[in-house]
């Protein structure tokens, strides 16, 4: 089936790439074998990445119509649906306002200390949402329900809008705004009619990311007793391991994710935002803030204190309260080592797996490579709990040999976080001119050697950036790890979770602190990377 598919598809590739405008195709000395091998690999990866989706579809079908209907159309699902929809409906707009507002102040006004604020607003991303929730529950023990959910989700996820918005605002061509001003528009009108439309991609992309995180989050909401589909699936899993009710909830959740993806594609639109024409772009102008200076400073201060200062403060307070007792090395060191091991192995595997796809997308773009990417994009938008459930079932029933091995967990990480690596490898590949590769070959190097010595080396920095992002995601991953980890596994996230659910808050604190410390440099890297990507 797979070979058949790739054999049918790979001949399309040269034709497809001919239709694109990239020049120099005629002299390309690459033998077709290399391309089709890479295509085959990419197809295999794509098929593999469709396992979770296939699993949910299969389970829904296998459950039988009547049972499925009974389990899906019941009051409890209504409650969860209401909770989940309200969470998205309230949190996403608030994140958009905070993210875009913050980005605009930092990038386009004469805000004092804007360089400092630019980093401070990205910093909350270094704090895992469930650690944030733990700190807030300490500060306000009565937190529960939808509004607490909105509060914690907003403070944890607004940087997902802020970072791309700031990157885009930083490189907007001021010429358009100047033309608008010369046509008589005031600053507010310019912001809403000229600036905001150009942020559309950053905003829809950020909103999608926030929504997907909202659907996937477990720990943060479980701690404040707010039930969403993901927390309810986890509850079902803990009550029945792999029961039908949990699987049906998962199918509703998957449906939800697909709707969001479609909505994002539709609202992104087809308009062109890139600058046309030659010449250097002027630096964006900065508006004076005058008497808005102090309120702006205070607003940003409040936001960063709530999103970053408060969690850090309470984590440190618990660490101090726990004293030396909580740092017992025989529990702590294995968790740290295993987290580092899974993080590095998962990041390395993701880069390796991402390479063929990125290569096809950049060097041989076609509908085929788009389909491959899309299939993975869909999977990575599924919550960790769905991927975890799928892998538990598939491995236990079809490949019992790999069941409960670290390989399965790493494979799940790869599927969940592949796009983070892909984006980076792609930009790296795009910056490595293939003419250099071709030159090396015309000087007598074998294609493989020239690829390794030229392209791979030029792409390495971008790949390392991608690896760092995946590493960050793995360190903070909870649900898939809880479901799939091999016997005896303790990661920082699972240890933190087990301690904090026994309300041993001081015992949990060191794990929280370490997760933040590991995340901080990666968050900074992500912030830097976003500027580069937007600037190219």
């Amino acid at each position, binding site marked *: 089936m797979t070979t058949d598919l790739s054999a049918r598809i790979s001949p399309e590739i040269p034709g497809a790439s001919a239709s694109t405008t990239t020049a120099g195709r005629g002299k390309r000395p690459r033998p077709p074998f290399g391309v089709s091998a890479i295509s085959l690999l990419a197809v295999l990866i794509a098929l593999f990445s469709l396992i979770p989706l296939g699993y949910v579809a299969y389970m829904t079908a296998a459950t039988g119509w009547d049972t499925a209907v009974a*389990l899906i159309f*019941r*009051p*409890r699902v209504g*409650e969860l649906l209401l909770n989940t929809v309200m969470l998205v409906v309230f949190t996403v707009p608030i994140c958009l306002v905070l993210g875009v507002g913050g980005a605009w102040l930092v990038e386009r006004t004469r805000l004092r200390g804007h360089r400092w604020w630019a980093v401070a607003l990205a910093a909350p991303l270094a704090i895992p949402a469930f650690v944030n929730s733990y700190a807030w529950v300490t500060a306000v*023990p*009565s937190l529960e329900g939808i509004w607490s959910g909105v509060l914690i989700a907003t403070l944890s996820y607004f940087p997902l809008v802020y970072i791309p918005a700031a990157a885009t605002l930083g490189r907007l061509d001021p010429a358009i705004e100047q033309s608008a001003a010369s046509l008589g528009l005031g600053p507010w009108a310019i912001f809403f009619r000229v600036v905001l439309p150009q942020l559309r991609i950053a905003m829809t992309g950020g909103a999608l990311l926030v929504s997907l995180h909202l659907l996937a989050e477990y720990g943060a909401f*479980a*701690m404040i*007793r707010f*039930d969403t589909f993901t927390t*309810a699936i986890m*509850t*079902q*899993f*803990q*009550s*029945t*391991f*792999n*029961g039908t*009710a949990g699987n049906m909830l998962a199918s509703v959740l998957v449906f939800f994710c697909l709707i969001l993806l479609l909505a994002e594609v539709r609202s992104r639109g087809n308009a062109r935002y890139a600058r046309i024409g030659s010449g250097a772009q002027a630096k964006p102008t900065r508006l004076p803030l005058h008497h808005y200076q102090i309120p702006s400073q205070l607003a940003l201060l409040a936001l960063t204190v709530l999103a970053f200062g408060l969690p850090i403060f309470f984590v440190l307070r618990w660490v101090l309260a726990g004293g030396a007792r909580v740092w017992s090395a*025989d529990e702590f*060191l*294995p968790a740290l*080592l*295993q987290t*580092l*091991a899974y993080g*590095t*192995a998962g*990041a*390395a595997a993701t*880069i390796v797996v991402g390479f063929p796809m990125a290569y096809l997308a950049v060097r041989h773009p076609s509908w085929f490579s788009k389909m491959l990417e899309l299939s993975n994009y869909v999977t990575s938008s599924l919550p960790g709990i769905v991927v975890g459930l799928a892998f538990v079932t598939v491995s*236990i029933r079809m490949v*019992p040999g790999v*069941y*409960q091995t*670290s390989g399965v967990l790493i494979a799940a990480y790869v599927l969940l976080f592949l796009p983070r690596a892909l984006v980076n490898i792609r930009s790296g590949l795009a910056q490595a001119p293939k003419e250099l590769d071709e030159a090396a070959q015309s000087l007598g190097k074998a294609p493989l050697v020239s690829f390794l010595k030229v392209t*791979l*080396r*030029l792409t*390495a*920095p971008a*790949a*390392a950036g991608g*690896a760092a992002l995946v590493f960050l995601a793995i360190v903070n991953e909870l649900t898939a790890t809880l479901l799939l980890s091999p*016997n*005896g596994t303790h990661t920082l996230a699972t240890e933190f979770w*087990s301690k904090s*659910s*026994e*309300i041993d808050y001081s015992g949990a604190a060191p794990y929280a602190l370490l997760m933040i410390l590991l995340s901080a440099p990666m968050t900074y890297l992500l912030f830097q990377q976003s500027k580069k990507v937007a600037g190219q």
Partner: protein
Amino acid sequence: MKIRANALTAIALAATAALSLAACGNGTASSAATDTATSTKVAGEITVYNAQHDTLTKEWVDAFTKQTGVKVTVRQGSDTELSNQIVQEGAASPADVFLTENSPAMAQVENAGLFADIDKATVDQVPAEYRPSTNKWTGIAARSTVLVYDKTKISDDKLPKSMLDLAKPEWKGRWAASPSGADFQAIVAALLEQKGEAATTEWLKGMKDNFKAYKGNSTAMKAVNAGEVDAALIYHYYYYGDQAKTGENSNKVTPYFFKSQDPGAFLSVSGGGVLKSSKNSAAAQAFIKFITGKQGQEVLKNGTSYEYAIASNVDSNAKLVPIKDLQAPAVDPAKLNSAKVTDLMTKAGLL
């Protein structure tokens, strides 16, 4: 550039090294110490699927490993999560031993025919009322149902006579429980066994209307302490454990035992069993024998778990209400049905 490419290789190498490090991290098998409690020599390693509290099992495991040199790998989960997992894994299960907090999950694995018989020497250590008649597994500890409440909000004469009263309208919005936990599901299983399906469904419906859901018994108790609810239906030792530490989560609560063989006086037996598919059943049996033996039960008496000791004539922790004063209803632990319970609770909208 060169450094980056090398860095990637280094990452891959580090990953491999770290993985193997992690794999043998806890493999420092202490030399086989002098063997006092276990009569047969055992060796090798076993995997324990553990739904008991992390810390309690760790105390057992450390003492057992110290005594026998058997390396024990623990997989942590909840009762029914792990029992269902064992059933799905079937003969291929990596588990040698299964420990739970309650009985229903044990009954489930027993009904699937996956348990080996418990060694006679172990059976002899455990009184008949704390193990199933089949001896396919055994009780290892016990825990009592209790209502912890806020004295300032409920006067003694307003306390419910029976757990079933909590479904009545006057309790609306006033009590907490942790329906996702195996503890609570065991209480429901006992109710089902005592009063039948219709009464249980009725009670669960009333519960759904009245109660507030928390994740975990300690969190429910903490809610009473913080004044968020008036009472919580939990197990006794969360209260005693917290009192023994700082009392931070329990200083404002009082435990109330229903007694009189009420469904709310249910004494839940924690189970331990050896799987038929165990690749090291000698060591697995030795482990169960160890935790039901004198040394294992003394961990319950002297340790920080505050669960009831039930075997080898070891007394429970002196701080607890003595087990014979609890007036628990007689329930055969082998008859508790977890699948039916989660089904009923799902239907009632609690899961």
